[in-house]
């Protein structure tokens, strides 16, 4: 039962995946690129950065990078939280 459901879900997913990548624009020739053209044209003037990817990361989409840094912080905090000793030092000694 579980196997059969699994296969059905998998096949439906794969069919739709292949279908969607067939439908999307051919690789290398995007249909629309207004936003990216604007960024490539204006990033030097607006952010002063030669590296357009850095300009996108830290200026145009700065909140994403802040969120990304936050996720890293969250994960580090989470890992250290889960690997902590569950008893305090003075109790064990």
């Amino acid at each position, binding site marked *: 039962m579980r*196997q059969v459901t*699994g296969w059905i*879900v*998998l096949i439906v*997913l*794969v069919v739709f*995946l*292949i279908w*969607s*990548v*067939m439908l*999307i624009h*051919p*690789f*290398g*020739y*995007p249909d629309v*690129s207004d*936003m*990216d053209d604007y*960024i*490539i044209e204006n*990033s*030097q003037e607006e952010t002063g950065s*030669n*590296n*357009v*990817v850095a*300009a*996108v*990361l830290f200026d*145009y*989409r700065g909140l*994403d*990078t802040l*969120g*990304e840094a936050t*996720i*890293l912080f*969250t*994960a*580090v905090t*989470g*890992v250290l939280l*889960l*690997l902590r000793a569950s008893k305090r030092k003075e109790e064990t000694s």
Partner: protein
Amino acid sequence: MMEHIPLDFPFLAAALLVGISFYIIIFKKNLIKLIMGIAMLASGVNLFLVSLGYRAGGNAPIYTDVPEGTMVMSVPQALTLTSIVINVAVLALMLTMVIRIYRHTGSLDSEKSRKLKG
């Protein structure tokens, strides 16, 4: 559409990666394999994202001593970078939990290490 299929290879590779990873996630019982499946799913999605932004014959979007010509789209690269770091964080946390589960139950099999039922 036929003439594009060789060119569309990155998209198909991404779909293949996602498909294989779903196979692993649905059918594999070992927790480490499950994590590997999720890592593959993340790679597939990242590959898909970054290949969305490619323009044929484009240069890297960095103006330092760049040759003449078009540039590839920069936003998908930034998104992929963000998504890679996010997935590193998720994987670190997952592995920690698996280590803890292994300490408690002595097994990595998702059937054997189950405590919660009903």
